[in-house]
């Protein structure tokens, strides 16, 4: 009465509602569908545009001082000067120009340090989690010792020894924050490694490299992206602490972090000095987080287009 079936009728797959995005427009479709993703992309593109064309957009030379017009409030506040839209700082430098030009260093340092730290952390975390045994012990004890020393202290030592420059700062930031990624990647690797599909890869004769690339990496990438995007913010703030201590960006160069620390003294009297670079950091970080969120969705095969 009931006979064996050769082909299962596949009801669930034929629903028009759940058709998957396909083809080369898949990414764009997925992006436009996600409002926050689009917003993130717009913000990040705007910030990059600002950094690239800073010289053309900035109304003033960001290093030019004008003692007469020092600590002018923003244009719309009483006593403001319409020439200086966002006001001026304690040396009479135009804050708008400094925010625009400062985006260069901040984005460069923030993103390169995260990329560097992410790469080191991903590599070492995968090694430790996948191979275990003594490799794991060596890497994880190193991570522990890094965590035992305060980040800022370690970076200060590096910068004091090698001397402050953009490159040393990126290396110092990347060289200390990788431990966060290493720990997370190791943990995720350990759990993914025990899943049946990794066992099934071994059963069909996959070598270690294939298992890591095809099985482990794609399955830990979403957690990695979340941590990395959140860390862009931390890194930009860390850069500001270093600049505040005089070991980061050296004047006449400018970064949002440096501006934040400059403004700290005047927080009570002239709020605008620290506020605008702060807003710039916040918007950038939000943009990167939105974009990261979208990226995570794109990489997830479960995402569908309606």
């Amino acid at each position, binding site marked *: 009465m009931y006979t*064996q*079936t*050769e*082909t*299962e009728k*596949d009801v*669930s*797959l034929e629903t028009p509602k759940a058709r*998957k995005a*396909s083809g080369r427009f898949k990414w764009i479709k997925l992006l436009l569908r996600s409002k926050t993703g689009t917003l993130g992309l717009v913000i990040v593109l705007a910030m990059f545009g600002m950094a690239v064309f800073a010289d053309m957009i900035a109304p003033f030379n960001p290093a030019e001082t004008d003692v007469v017009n020092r600590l002018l409030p923003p244009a719309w506040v009483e006593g403001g000067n319409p020439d200086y839209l966002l006001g001026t700082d304690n040396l009479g430098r135009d804050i708008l120009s400094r925010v625009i030009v400062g985006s260069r260093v901040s984005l460069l340092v923030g993103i390169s340090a995260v990329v560097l730290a992410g790469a080191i952390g991903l590599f070492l975390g995968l090694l430790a989690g996948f191979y275990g045994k003594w490799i794991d012990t060596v890497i994880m004890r190193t991570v522990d010792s890094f965590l035992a020393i305060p980040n800022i202290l370690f970076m200060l030592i590096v910068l004091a020894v090698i001397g402050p420059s953009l490159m040393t700062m990126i290396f110092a930031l990347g060289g200390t924050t990788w431990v966060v990624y290493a720990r997370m990647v190791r943990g995720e690797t350990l759990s993914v490694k025990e*899943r*049946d*599909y990794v*066992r*099934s*890869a*071994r*059963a*069909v*004769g*996959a*070598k270690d490299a*294939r298992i890591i690339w*095809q*099985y482990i990496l*794609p*399955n830990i990438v979403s957690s990695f992206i979340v941590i990395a995007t959140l860390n862009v913010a931390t890194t930009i703030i860390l850069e500001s602490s270093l600049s505040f201590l005089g070991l980061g960006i050296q004047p006449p160069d400018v970064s949002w972090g440096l501006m934040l620390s400059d403004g700290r003294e005047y927080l009570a009297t002239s709020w605008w000095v620290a506020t605008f670079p702060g807003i710039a950091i916040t918007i950038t970080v939000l943009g990167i987080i939105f974009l990261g969120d979208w990226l995570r969705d794109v990489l997830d*095969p*479960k995402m569908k287009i309606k």
Partner: protein
Amino acid sequence: MMNTTAAANRRPLIQVKDLKKHFPITRGLFNQTVGTVRAVDGIDLEVYEGETLGIVGESGCGKSTTGQMLLGLLPPSEGSVIFEGKDLTSLSKEELRLRRKDLQVIFQDPYSSLNPRMTIEQLVGEPLKIYGLKKGKALRDEVVRLLRVVGLDEHHLKRHPHEFSGGQRQRIGIARALALNPKVLICDEPVSALDVSIQAQILNLLKKLQREFNLTYVFIAHGLPAVRHISDRIAVMYLGKVVEITDRDSLFESPTHPYTEALLSAIPVADPTKRRTHKPLEGDLPNPSNPPSGCRFHTRCPYAQERCVKEEPSLVEYKPGHHAACHYPLGM
């Protein structure tokens, strides 16, 4: 009976000798070993070409660990697994990898055994790619052929595992396992995570494939009805030991080991007129890190005597092809 005599004339494809797997229990900062779990504690088995050997037992009896060792995915602590005359435990990592072409596996959970990030085409084609057997169009054609064999088709190529139901995923897993044209399939609880009506589909499919491709199955399960349906011979395991091994009909009709008897009577029968009348087996499974002395079943055995506490029974052939490890076998 026919199966046993037929088996006697054949040479075993896999021979397991005194196989053991002990897992250390570690604790503390420096991973001190505080004990061992004797997951598999000295088993001997033979698997003949073209047959289905069922391995049954409750959780913690070591049946899955045995399966992993048969595949060479887990190195044994002691003993050997001889496959076509070669001891798998003596092979190097690379030799073992190449050997595994002939030994494939189907997993229990179709939701966790397929990489969620791969498409069906990648999943089924991967084994062929790894061994460099097929490329380009030939690879795709082969994948389509394999999908048809398991009752799917080319519409499914570009899809990801999450778009399929449990039964379909299990079919994908079977297609992937068949890709290398293996001699042996180790089925590790292949139907226990599926719905009843889907279980039947998969069991029927496995039977059909066995006939078509002359496959040898090792079918590991805790559900006795499914094992009976598919197996020629059945080994019953308890706490890391094989307690009884024989052809399926004698196992079900005249179990010799008290544990087998208890296991059989514990199965709820899908017939309300045949409700169980006697009391079920009492007590819990002992802890495998500290198994009972003598016969491991004596703590729960209704027939246990003094000798069972002191002396460990060995697997004895009581009838042709019917082995049991019991001092006082039933019906003898």
